[in-house]
């Protein structure tokens, strides 16, 4: 093995050295899943009858479904009766100051450039600063309310805005959509709700961080975003800080509704625990994300940076119903060690002159497997629809794999669909060239990979992009400090 490859091997084989293990004090539902579990959850949340019925319907349908096996991922059979479907708000260990924090975690935070206040929040430090940050959140919430923007937990929305929930819940991802969406619909614990009224441009990036009661969103998260006519919102999910969770299976659902002339930009950074070097442990992330451009000239843009999870199975999609509507998907998916990712998008063109763009950048290192799976469907009535797809794969080392599964279905002759795909390796020539200019191999790999992801990072909100770059460096290097 050449020296460069050895170094690559070292840096890409390091283990995930951070994350939280929290002690859980909870009042849990008993293990297992039947109708009584669904009723238990609904009752705990004090939900209206119609929502319980909706959950039950989803549950009954779920019983008739089988787990999908088509993704290019492999894992042992999940025992759905061995899962706790409800656990009350989790508590993280309370620290008196950041000095008590594990120095390694502190180093990660510093490396990611996370502010002190946020560090304290993430670490669960019980000091005044956290109270300050709560009041900061409240202030944000107040200024949003003045504009008529609703941004709250899903549970709160069910209580305070039942009409909106009733109108939109399941309107994009029906409860019966797929195995995991049905499961989520039956047992979802909490999540976020966001509503932007007509003509309002949300003045700040909406991040789950600013949502009160954001603690303990749980493994079956539900997000619903509605942008009324002419509204604009940029929504951030997740954070670059490492996330560890007791729950191995995560099956979230995200629904986005974009009305006439509205734009919703949804950015995700996902950094769940990927398991150890041998693939033991780690989160299974089976997510259904879909948006619909209901009105003319509506736009939905997904940007994702995926570095975590043992298994990722996720296809943020857009249904382009309105004429001239636009769907975008920008993705960076990094897999390392034994991680497996099967991710991509679906662009369903229904309206006339609809446009979609797909830019997917897969990076595989270690012994990981990284697949792109994408569907572009042009409906019969989608006159002059256009799609451009670019799927690039980058291999680091010689034990990983990259796969591309593009599906293209064109039902209208006037459509224009373009698909470009490339696979490349981080070349020893490139690394040597950097070395010869004084740049170390590790920095060279970062530089090359960042260059490769540039088109996607450019889509992220500024601060998020900077964090994502650092996260990428850490993911590749796999060590802290």
């Amino acid at each position, binding site marked *: 093995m050449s*020296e*460069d490859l050895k170094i690559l091997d070292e840096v890409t084989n390091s283990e995930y050295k951070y994350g939280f293990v929290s002690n859980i004090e909870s009042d849990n539902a008993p293990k297992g899943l039947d109708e009584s579990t669904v009723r238990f959850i609904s009752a705990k949340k004090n939900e209206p009858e119609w929502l319980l019925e909706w959950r039950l319907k989803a549950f009954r349908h779920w019983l008739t479904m089988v787990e999908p096996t088509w993704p290019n991922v492999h894992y042992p059979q999940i025992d759905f009766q061995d899962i706790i479907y409800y656990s009350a708000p989790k508590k993280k260990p309370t620290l008196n100051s950041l000095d008590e924090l594990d120095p390694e975690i502190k180093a990660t935070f510093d490396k990611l450039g996370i502010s002190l206040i946020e560090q304290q929040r993430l670490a669960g430090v019980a000091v005044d600063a956290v109270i300050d940050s709560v009041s900061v959140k409240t202030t944000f919430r107040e200024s949003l309310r003045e504009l008529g923007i609703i941004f709250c937990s899903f549970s709160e929305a069910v209580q305070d805005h039942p009409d909106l929930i009733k109108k939109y819940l399941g309107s994009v991802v029906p409860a019966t959509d797929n195995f995991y969406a049905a499961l989520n619909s039956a047992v979802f614990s909490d999540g976020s709700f966001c509503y932007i009224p007509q003509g309002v441009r949300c003045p700040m990036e909406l991040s789950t961080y600013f949502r009160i009661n954001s603690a303990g969103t749980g493994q079956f998260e539900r997000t619903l975003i509605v942008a009324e006519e002419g509204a604009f919102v940029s929504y951030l999910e997740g954070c670059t800080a490492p996330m560890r969770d007791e729950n191995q299976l995560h099956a979230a659902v995200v629904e986005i509704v974009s009305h006439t002339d509205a734009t919703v930009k949804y950015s995700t950074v996902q950094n769940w625990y990927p398991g150890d070097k041998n693939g033991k442990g780690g989160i299974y992330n089976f997510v259904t994300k879909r948006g619909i451009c209901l009105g003319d000239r509506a736009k939905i843009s997904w940007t994702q940076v995926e570095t975590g999870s043992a298994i990722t199975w996720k296809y943020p999609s857009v249904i382009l119903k309105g004429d001239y509507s636009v769907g975008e998907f920008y993705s960076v998916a990094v897999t390392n060690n034994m991680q497996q990712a099967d991710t991509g998008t679906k662009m369903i063109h229904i309206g006339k002159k609809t446009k979609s763009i797909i830019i997917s950048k897969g990076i595989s290192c270690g012994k990981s497997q990284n697949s792109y799976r994408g569907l572009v469907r042009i409906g019969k009535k989608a006159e002059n629809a256009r799609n451009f797809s670019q799927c690039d794969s980058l291999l680091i080392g010689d034990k990983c794999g990259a796969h591309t599964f593009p599906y293209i279905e064109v039902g209208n002759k006037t459509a224009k669909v373009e698909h470009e795909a490339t696979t490349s390796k981080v*070349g020893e020539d490139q690394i*040597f*060239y950097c070395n*010869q*200019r*004084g*740049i170390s191999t590790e920095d060279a790999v970062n530089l090359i990979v960042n*260059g490769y992801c540039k088109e996607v990072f450019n889509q992220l909100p500024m601060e998020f992009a900077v964090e994502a770059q650092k996260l990428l460096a850490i993911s590749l290097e796999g060590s802290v400090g």
Partner: protein
Amino acid sequence: MLSIKDLKASVEGKQILNGLNLEVKPGEVHAIMGPNGSGKSTLASVLAGREEYEVEGGAVNFLGNDLLEMSPEDRARAGMFLAFQYPVEIPGVSNANFLKTAVNEVRKSRGLAAYDSKEFLQIMKEKMKLVEMDKAMTQRSVNEGFSGGEKKRNEIFQMAMLEPTLAILDETDSGLDIDALRIVSNGVNALRDGNRSFIVITHYQRLLDYIVPDFVHVLYKGRIVKSGTKDLALELEEKGYDWIKEEVAVGA
């Protein structure tokens, strides 16, 4: 500054350098010529530390250090620069960003503070003039979509930015038209300051009309078989290499 003694090296099991000796003092310009396959580019690669090249024997001292023990990046930080015959493309990484990383890495290793963006832009602007480089080129990805001439110009621009102690030019003239050759050579000459040394590897005497060497060496079968002044290059231009090959055969 650079002292190569009895250097032997192979690539893919094939011995290319067979006991090469070379002494370079500060400020000197050495031209290395020789027929195809004589080991010219191998010499450049071994000095820069390319790992496919196996050193089988000999010693190289660079500024008092055992060069062969140093990693490629440490060689670069110590002041060795290789202008590549085939510069590599790095998509998505702007030339400016690449150079800033490199320059600050080198400065760090010398205990100097990193340049901030403003200082760096200022220095870049000055050095760009040396190779008549367009500002747009610094914003483009490293060598991506550059013409042959632009790539070579970019190499010399990088050299100007990194201010090496020893620069090795590996067939920098190949694929250049007359204008580009003049620009590149002017750039190199502007960097001759009496201390900086150069090893210029070339096939053609033409380059040496522009970059006038102090010494010309002929590399053949992995050894330097003849050394002389600029006149030797002219002689080679006129007579080819056969007479040298014959001399070597007789001597052997």
